[in-house]
């Protein structure tokens, strides 16, 4: 006989399965809200714009890494989850943070000073890398719906492989945002290397 607790937990997991969107999307946006709140209350320190901008970029990179981690998690850790739905979640959140990151850079940091921004975007390798990563994410965000999948069929799968170059570009951009290699960037770069290595490992039938 199942215990009462078992029913309760089944009911809870049912809740999550039905309403995961309304729970997980807002959850993923909490860091953005938290950063804005901190920024307005002096909690981002002496150079708040810089910290805000960098933190948003780091969250974008984190969600890109999370997105790439889903398939290896399933393959190597034996966690069976409905991959696609969480890929869309993490991918869209990455796009959300990358967009805010660029908005902070353009608006808050440079006050829409287009002369400076144009030189940045056309001349600076560091900025070009980051911008390219965002540009690659745009078609992915636009086609992240069931209709596009149905219409595009196999081309959809091919298009969405752009997540790999986008993450690699973001990774180099992130690495270059520090003066030297350091304990903040090392774990993320190691994670990226590991996730890419997982793809190279020979496929075997499970």
């Amino acid at each position, binding site marked *: 006989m199942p215990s009462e607790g078992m029913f309760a937990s089944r009911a809870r997991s049912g809740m999550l399965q039905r309403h995961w969107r309304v729970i997980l999307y807002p959850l993923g946006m909490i860091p953005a809200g938290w950063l804005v709140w901190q920024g307005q209350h002096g909690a981002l320190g002496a150079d708040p714009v810089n910290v805000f901008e960098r933190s948003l970029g780091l969250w974008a990179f984190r969600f890109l890494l999370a997105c790439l981690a889903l398939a290896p998690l399933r393959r190597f850790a034996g966690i069976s989850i409905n991959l696609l739905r969480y890929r869309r979640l993490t991918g869209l959140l990455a796009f959300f943070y990358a967009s805010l990151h660029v908005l902070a850079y353009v608006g808050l940091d440079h006050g829409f000073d287009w002369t400076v921004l144009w030189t940045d975007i056309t001349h600076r390798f560091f900025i070009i890398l980051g911008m390219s990563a965002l540009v690659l994410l745009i078609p992915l965000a636009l086609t992240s719906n069931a209709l596009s999948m149905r219409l595009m069929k196999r081309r959809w799968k091919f298009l969405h492989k752009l997540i790999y170059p986008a993450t690699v570009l973001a990774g180099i951009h992130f690495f270059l945002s520090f003066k*030297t290699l350091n*304990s903040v960037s090392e774990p993320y770069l190691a994670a990226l290397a590991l996730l890419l290595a997982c793809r190279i490992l020979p496929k075997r039938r499970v």
Partner: protein
Amino acid sequence: MALFQYPRPLPSEITPKEMYLSRRALIGGAAALSTLATAANAASLQTHPGPYSGNLTPTPHEDVTHYNNFYEFGMGKADPAARSQDFHPLPWTLEITGLVRKPVRLDVEQLLRSAAMEERIYRMRCVEAWSMVIPWDGLPLASLLKDADPDPRATHVAFESVLRPSEMPGQSDGLSGIQWPYVEGLRLDEAMNPLTLLALGVYGETLPNQNGAPIRLVVPWKYGFKGIKSLQRIRLLDHEPPTTWNRLASDEYGFYANVNPQVDHPRWSQATERVIGAHSLFGATRQPTLMFNGYGEQVADLYRGMDLRKNF
């Protein structure tokens, strides 16, 4: 606060309680000097207003002492204040050697009592495109170099900081690629310029560890990284010495490192700077960066005829 009306305090400046109490304890002149050697907290300095301060409003004390680049203590801006408690700045000897007729070894505790100590309120422009205004207390480097009597062959000055991995946790991080100790350099005429200061204090008190205790270089028309901290050795040379950041990334950090809004860093524009001290995301400001950080009148002659794009 009435006890400590230090020149030009800001209404917005809130002095931390510990410091306020330690200042109180140090009142009484002679007692203060004997405590210098052991005090972990800042001690007040006898200083008088010097030239070149202009009409600048200093950045709040809290930001000057808690937003620092001092990689010997870690790479985060808050690391130097948080991770420098184990550093022992005193006793300290500063030596001036190399191409000098009278090599000297200076006892920094004696320098701290120097009657010549001046307050200089300078702009500080970091190569990372942010800026502060800092009320330093110190002695012009030229006066100390003159005492050592430079040999006519000397053309450059090399500066060396301290190597103490046991007290400076950042020096054990091998992945940064930085060779310790930190080294810097100036041309002799730059070192002799009256603006060039050896700072022993900030805001009228001895330097906190995170600001480069017990003595550091301040070259206000150059990017902040030229201002070597916890300075131990000065050597006069007949050639340009290697400098830490130039050694690490010569395309990004030149030997001269003069503040120049027209010469961009490869990764960002140097035309403008974020002003430190707003503490509000939507209230922060950017201002145009000035050629030679606004000190052109004093230093432009040093570089006449030079291509500053090439010698960045």
